[in-house]
Structures are given as structure tokens and as C-alpha cells.
């Protein structure tokens, strides 16, 4: 089944770790319907999971009264995913983890989520919401007709 025109799927998650897997499964299902090959579906799953984890932990600070919105827009040749939280937005841009510095205790072993997101999708941007709320990360993954 190929999406002939834009199709939107929305999921709302509680701010509880583990529920990122619901968004991950939904994104994978949409990507498979669009015809993405398996390796790209796996890339998308990890990117969406990490975006949701950031939203749950850092955006909504694990406040279960707040939810994380996940909006998937399936176009003809690309899938856009927005992950929306009630935080002030991410500070700074992703940096490539330095494994040597981590092993020698000079860099936190954690903090790889944003790097993975950026590395696994075709486009990633972090947008701070007005009034310090409704910030989001927008991911874009393209259906590569040559490779797919």
C-alpha cells in the first residue's frame, strides 16, 4: 500500500518511560505501509524512540500529568514525525559521542539520544515552542526509490 497523498496518524503517550515503544511500533507500521525497506524502518524506530525518551525525560520531566504528542505525516516519498512535549526545547545541537573520553571518564556515558536521532534520519530539527511550551523535534525520513 503506497500513500498517494498525505496521511496523518497521531499518537498521544503518557510521560512514562517504556511508552516510547508505542510510538516506535506505530512509526514502524506506517513506514512499512509506505514501502520503506527493513533497515530504514529500524533506523526510524530508534530515532522515534529516542525522540520520545527525550520528550518524556527532559521535556515533560517524567510528569505523568503531561503527555507527549507524536504526529506522523506520510507523504508520497517521505515520512515526517513530530514529537511534541511541554518543555522549553533542547539546548544546543547534538554532538558526536567521543568513546575515548567516555571510557576515560571525561564525558558522561549517557547523552547519545540526539546524536542517534540526527545520524539515523535524513533531517532532524529541534524547535523551541513559544512561551516555553509545545517544543518539538521534527524528523524526516525519505523513501529512497533507488535503494528501496
Amino acid at each position, binding site marked *: 500500500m503506497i500513500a498517494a497523498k498525505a496521511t496523518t496518524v497521531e499518537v498521544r503517550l503518557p510521560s*512514562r*518511560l*517504556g*511508552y*516510547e*515503544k508505542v510510538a516506535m511500533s506505530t512509526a514502524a507500521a506506517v513506514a512499512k505501509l509506505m514501502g520503506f525497506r527493513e*533497515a530504514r524502518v*529500524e*533506523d526510524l524506530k*530508534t530515532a522515534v*524512540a*529516542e525522540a520520545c*525518551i527525550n520528550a518524556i525525560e527532559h521535556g515533560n520531566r517524567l510528569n505523568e500529568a503531561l503527555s507527549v504528542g507524536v504526529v506522523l505525516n506520510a507523504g508520497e516519498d517521505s515520512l515526517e514525525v513530530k514529537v511534541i512535549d511541554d518543555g522549553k526545547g533542547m539546548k544546543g545541537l547534538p554532538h558526536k*559521542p*567521543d*568513546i*575515548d573520553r*567516555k*571510557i576515560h*571518564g571525561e564525558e558522561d*556515558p*549517557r*547523552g*547519545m*539520544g540526539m*546524536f*542517534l536521532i540526527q*545520524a539515523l534520519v535524513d533531517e532532524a530539527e529541534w524547535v523551541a515552542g513559544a512561551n516555553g511550551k509545545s517544543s518539538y523535534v521534527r524528523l524526516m525520513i525519505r523513501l529512497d526509490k533507488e535503494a528501496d
Partner: protein
Amino acid sequence: MQSDTKAHVDQLTSPAGHPVTVLRFEGDIASTSKDAVLGTYQGLPKESAKLVLLDFTKVDYINSSGIALVIQMLIEASNSAQKVYAFGLSAHFTKVFTMVGITKYAGLFPNQFEALAAL
């Protein structure tokens, strides 16, 4: 929502005759896996467990918090003169481990047979 991480330890001998401690994981490797991943590793005798092999064959989901636990294990192993190897990762997580640089400190193998043959 996250599946519990199970871990158990096997003692094997490589074809070359070296004792190899295998940590077999099952379930998700995420922030809730600290006891299963680090706790199990920290329970190994540092004097005798010099070759540690991680089995990810039954792991479906690893997130960045889980990767951080593996890196914490590598930090401790580096300080204890232990060598860590892994097998059973999917093609995707082999790529992710390579991207974050883990392969510099932990050799990856497709399966247990090939891992043991190299040790």
C-alpha cells in the same frame, strides 16, 4: 511497559583453551536494566573473568540509556584489565554500536561460535 531484563552467566572455554565468561541478556536493555547489566557484570570475579562475552541474541530493544550501561561496563572492564566482546546483535544495533564507537573497546561477532573461535 518495558520488559524486564534477564541476565545469566555461563562459563565456557574457547577452542584456544581460554576461560570465557558469557553474560546472556534477554528482554529490553534500557534505563531499567542497570541491575541486570551492571549488577550481573559487577558480580563476576575480576581476577578470573578476564574474557567477558556479552550475548544479545535474545535482546530486541536497546535504547541510548541501555547503550550507556554497556559503556559503563566497558569503563569498569578497562579499569580491571578485562576484555569485553559481544555477539548476537541485529544488523541495526551492530550499526548503532559502531556509530557510537563501542566497537573500539568491544569486538563484535555475529554469533557465539565465531566469537569463541577468535578468543
